[in-house]
């Protein structure tokens, strides 16, 4: 439970910050910081027992049928990452508070940041791999938002899109890989998967699973050849770079490699794929970093290189290498986040991040210089800093590892990478902060306030402390974390500065000396580098994206020629062919069900319906006529429902019919009455043939089903449970509000959205071109001299209360007899629409007490609240309950919670219908420029002025 809370806290923080958008920046930063600190405290409280070997866990079934469980667990590995995420998170929030300019939206930034933090925390604490995947994709999405935070900058948008495409694409591969892994292991829970190492490695699916998982991890952790997105992501504000692109998100891939290390590592395939990729990435990243002049680009490629180092260590597959990887994850997070924040300070105070325009800042910015020296020399691998120790250990491991019988390859590449790493680190320190003071800084540099230098200083202090007392400070953490990665007790290791005169020390000295030498000759190195043909990753990426877009465009253009007629023709024909194909595969048995003999009335109704359908088609061009004919069909369908034991459907159909015809009449008034030229005879014949075939097919299919007895339908259950389970005897209504209440809930939302879309479409129709055309509208049909016939007005007012009572009656009895929320809502709507018709839109509109938007929202909320209410009693969403009470005079009366749900349905229906039709009527009135009736019985306002039309 504590774990769940921990995991939720960042999300709650995101919500709190978003809600506090109107408060000051300090409040928002404090909210975000408080949520992060609270989560960190919760983690730290559990730390002693977790490090002692008791993992804390939380599990809640979510979708058991899919093996999806909302289960979390925290072992030492998860603990270390959670600590890094939250600890550095607090520093970043503090830093961001002072870093962001006044015009940047602080609540937006912090909300995204907290969302990211929650997603990242979810990854490292997930027990279920499916849950992990959800969080994994969430980090991709939230990092997309963060990288593109400065959305007015093209490079920000492009960088964000590239990062999303690469990490999201890798995420897709990871989904496939983890699904295979879970299938092989027989469980999607990590704790079970971690025990199934032998089964997994023995399975023929090991190779595809491994490759897919590695693609996901490599894409996320910017491994070659997916490394190119990370430098482009530097368009993000610096706090984001420091957080996502050094300490947390890019480590997610490494984390997963470490997490799955016990089950996936140890094979030759693992070694060659992972160690080689890591090695190449480490070298390539370091080489490019040396020649970048932008401080953040330099750090980005350096991060790529260090991630490669970690990947390589995990790829070695030896327990000792895993220990080193764990230690270096910790060290890299400290010095790299400090350096990113330091680069941000330089950018912020000097106004440029270009190394060539910097130098000599040591006297102007002593604090920033100190931080840069400490963190930079740690990155270079110099004693007495923590980077030195883990780099020594890395070189030691590299020296022992043989790649395809080439004993020299890995040690050589590792030393070269360490050399380049030393060189770019020295460059960062010396070319920015030392050397001659310049006179052309874009701004007058000085040290920033404590809010900016404080967070990196904390990390720099850690760099020094771990450097001096590695065994005391890092040891108690590294030991259990390494054990968690390896899945067994780690080999003996000593975290200390001095290991004696080992080959690693020799390699280290070589690297540092070489690095210094390279920097000394940096100018020549640059000229050499410029002659090396480096493929441009961005161009390749753009080419791939362009090719994909082109291919999709070809497909789209082939399917959508831009004419609705052709698309629909293809759609109908294809559907028909699919049905034919299905039938030819399935086959059909003989008829097993006797039919109902048709009476004369039934035949007459059928004839009327067929005649109506034909009439609609024939007279489709005379629109008012077609409308009358189509209402005949609606009427017959309603009668059919009455006859065929569906009273609820009959009531619904007839009331929907009224509303639909009113709507079409209103719309028709504004649509052109002059029909378009008819299509060619050939086209009509072709369409008629297709329509005939489709109609015959559908009719035959319906007949085939109806003449065969159903096989064991579920309805017997509904029938039996309606009264004892749902408390009502109208099984259709009980199904709607109870058994399938969730569907109904969705339907009223859909209806509300449709009404809102209609509102939006019509509301904006009074502007621009549409508005001018509306003003030019002239009635095409002759109008009645009496705008509001007296008889109609009087009758409608008299009918209103009666109609409302009928609606109420239908509503109240709906649970037991035909009626219910939908029908009652429609009846209410009709009763009100009649007022619109009789007395005019404005007259009726002026008398409404509730906004229709409010009705829709209220309806949905009432339904939702009823559904959620059942949660309070420990029952699933939308469980209904009922009670019988005896009222004086009325007698026994049933009170069901489903009734409240039905109230919501009714409200939403009334709101949606009135909003849609009301807005249309409003538009109509604007178009006709009609005066508003003032008096209750004002039947024609123009008459008083003596201007009879």
């Amino acid at each position, binding site marked *: 439970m504590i774990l769940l809370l921990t995991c939720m806290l960042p999300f709650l923080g995101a919500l709190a910050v978003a809600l506090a958008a109107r408060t000051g920046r300090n409040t928002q930063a404090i909210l975000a910081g408080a949520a992060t600190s609270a989560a960190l405290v919760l983690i730290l409280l559990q730390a002693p027992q977790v490090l002692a070997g008791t993992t804390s866990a939380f599990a809640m079934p979510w979708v058991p049928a899919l093996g999806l469980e909302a289960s979390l667990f925290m072992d030492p590995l998860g603990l270390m990452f959670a600590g890094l995420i939250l600890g550095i998170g607090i520093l970043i929030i503090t830093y961001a508070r002072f870093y962001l300019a006044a015009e940047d939206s602080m609540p937006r930034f912090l909300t995204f940041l907290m969302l990211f933090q929650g997603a990242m925390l979810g990854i490292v604490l997930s027990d279920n791999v499916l849950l992990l995947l959800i969080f994994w994709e969430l980090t991709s999405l939230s990092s997309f938002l963060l990288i593109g935070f400065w959305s007015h900058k093209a490079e920000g948008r492009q960088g964000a899109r590239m990062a999303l495409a690469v990490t999201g694409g890798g995420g897709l591969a990871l989904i496939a890989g983890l699904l295979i892994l879970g299938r092989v292991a027989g469980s999607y829970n990590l704790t079970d998967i971690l025990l199934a190492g032998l089964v997994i490695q023995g399975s023929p699916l090991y190779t595809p699973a491994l490759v897919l998982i590695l693609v996901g991890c490599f894409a996320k952790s910017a491994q070659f050849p997916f490394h190119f997105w990370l430098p482009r992501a530097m368009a993000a504000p610096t706090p984001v770079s420091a957080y996502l692109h050094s300490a947390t998100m890019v480590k997610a891939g490494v984390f997963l490699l470490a997490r799955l290390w016990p089950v996936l590592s140890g094979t030759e395939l693992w070694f060659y794929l992972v160690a080689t990729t890591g090695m190449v990435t480490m070298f390539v990243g370091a080489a490019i970093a040396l020649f970048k002049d932008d401080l953040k680009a330099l750090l980005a490629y350096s991060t790529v290189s260090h991630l490669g180092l970690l990947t390589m260590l995990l790829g070695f597959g030896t327990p000792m290498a895993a220990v080193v990887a764990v230690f270096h994850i910790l060290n890299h997070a400290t010095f790299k986040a400090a350096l990113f924040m330091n680069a941000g300070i330089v950018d912020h105070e000097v106004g440029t991040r270009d190394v060539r325009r910097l130098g000599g800042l040591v006297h102007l910015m002593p604090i920033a210089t100190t931080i840069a020296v400490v963190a930079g020399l740690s990155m270079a691998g110099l004693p007495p800093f923590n980077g030195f120790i883990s780099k020594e250990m890395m070189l030691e491991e590299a020296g022992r590892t043989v790649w395809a019988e080439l004993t020299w390859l890995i040690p050589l590449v590792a030393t070269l990478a360490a050399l380049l790493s030393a060189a770019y680190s020295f460059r960062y320190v010396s070319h920015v902060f030392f050397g001659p003071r310049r006179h052309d800084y874009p701004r007058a540099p000085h040290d920033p306030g404590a809010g900016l230098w404080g967070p990196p200083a904390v990390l720099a202090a850690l760099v020094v402390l771990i450097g001096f007392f590695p065994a005391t400070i890092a040891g108690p953490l590294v030991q259990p974390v390494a054990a968690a990665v390896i899945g067994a007790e780690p080999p003996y290791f000593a975290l200390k500065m001095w290991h004696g005169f080992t080959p690693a020390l020799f390699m280290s000295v070589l690297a540092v000396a070489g690095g210094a030498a390279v920097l000394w000759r940096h100018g020549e190195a640059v000229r050499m580098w410029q002659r090396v043909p480096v493929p441009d990753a961005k161009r390749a990426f753009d080419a791939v994206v362009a090719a994909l877009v082109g291919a999709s465009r070809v497909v789209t253009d082939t399917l959508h020629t831009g004419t609705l007629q052709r698309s629909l023709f293809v759609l109908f024909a294809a559907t028909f062919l699919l049905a034919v194909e299905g039938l030819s595969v399935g086959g059909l048995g003989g008829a097993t069900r006797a039919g109902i003999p048709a009476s004369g009335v039934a035949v007459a109704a059928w004839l009327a319906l067929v005649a109506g*359908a034909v009439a609609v088609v024939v007279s489709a061009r005379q629109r008012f006529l077609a409308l009358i004919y189509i209402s005949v069909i609606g009427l017959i*369908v309603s009668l059919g429902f009455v006859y065929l034991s569906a009273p609820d459907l009959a009531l619904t159909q007839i009331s929907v019919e009224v509303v639909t015809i009113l709507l079409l009449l209103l719309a028709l008034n504004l649509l052109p009455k002059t029909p378009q030229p008819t299509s060619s005879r050939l086209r009509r014949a072709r369409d008629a043939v297709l329509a005939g075939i489709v109609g015959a097919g559908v009719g035959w299919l319906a007949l085939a089903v109806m003449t065969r007895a159903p096989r064991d339908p579920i309805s017997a259950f509904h029938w039996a449970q309606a009264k004892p389970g749902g408390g009502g005897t109208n099984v259709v209504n009980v199904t709607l509000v109870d058994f399938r209440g969730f569907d109904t809930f969705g339907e009223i939302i859909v209806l509300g959205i449709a009404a809102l879309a209609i509102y939006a479409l019509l509301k904006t129709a009074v502007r621009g071109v549409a508005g001018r055309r509306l003003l030019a509208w002239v009635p095409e049909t002759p109008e009645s001299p009496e705008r509001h016939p007296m008889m109609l007005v009087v009758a409608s007012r008299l009918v209103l209360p009666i109609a409302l009572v009928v609606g109420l009656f239908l509503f109240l009895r709906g649970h037991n007899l035909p009626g219910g929320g939908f029908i009652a809502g429609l009846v209410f709507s009709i009763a009100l629409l009649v007022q619109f018709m009789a007395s005019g839109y404005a007259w009726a509109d002026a008398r409404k007490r509730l906004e229709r938007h409010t009705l829709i929202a209220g309806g949905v909320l009432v339904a939702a609240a009823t559904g959620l209410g059942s949660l309070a009693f420990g029952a699933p969403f939308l469980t209904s309950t009922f009670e019988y009470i005896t009222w004086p005079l009325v007698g026994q009366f049933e009170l069901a919670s489903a009734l409240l749900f039905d109230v919501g349905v009714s409200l939403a229906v009334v709101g949606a219908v009135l909003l849609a039709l009301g807005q249309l009527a409003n538009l109509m009135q604007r178009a006709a420029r009609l005066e508003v009736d003032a008096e209750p019985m004002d039947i024609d306002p123009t008459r008083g002025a003596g201007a009879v039309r």
Partner: protein
Amino acid sequence: MTVELLVASAIGVMTAAGVYLCLRGSTFSVVLGLAMLSYAINAFLFSMGRLVVDRPPIYDPSAPGFTDPLPQALVLTAIVIAFGMTALVVVLALRSYLESGTDDVNGAGAEPPPADGDAPDDPAEPPCT
């Protein structure tokens, strides 16, 4: 002649009419076609529960039988949703006509907007809250 045959053929006729109207060139025909298809499809769905006379799905222990309530519940919401769809489509058709000056589904014969109008770009109308 059975009721099943009547219902099935009616569904067929309504489907055919709906498909034919949907393939016509003016937006209002397409709206009519969609409405026809809605009738046909709702009736089709309803008929999947088989046809029964005089056995409404109102629970009564002494009832001799009952018709399948599930298709009815599904069709009930489908009818209401079909109304929402028809309303949206007709309003789309209306807006498209107001924007383009034609009610051809492919936008053929679009007219330039009337130039003499004095519709303000942002009419002074109280915003809906």
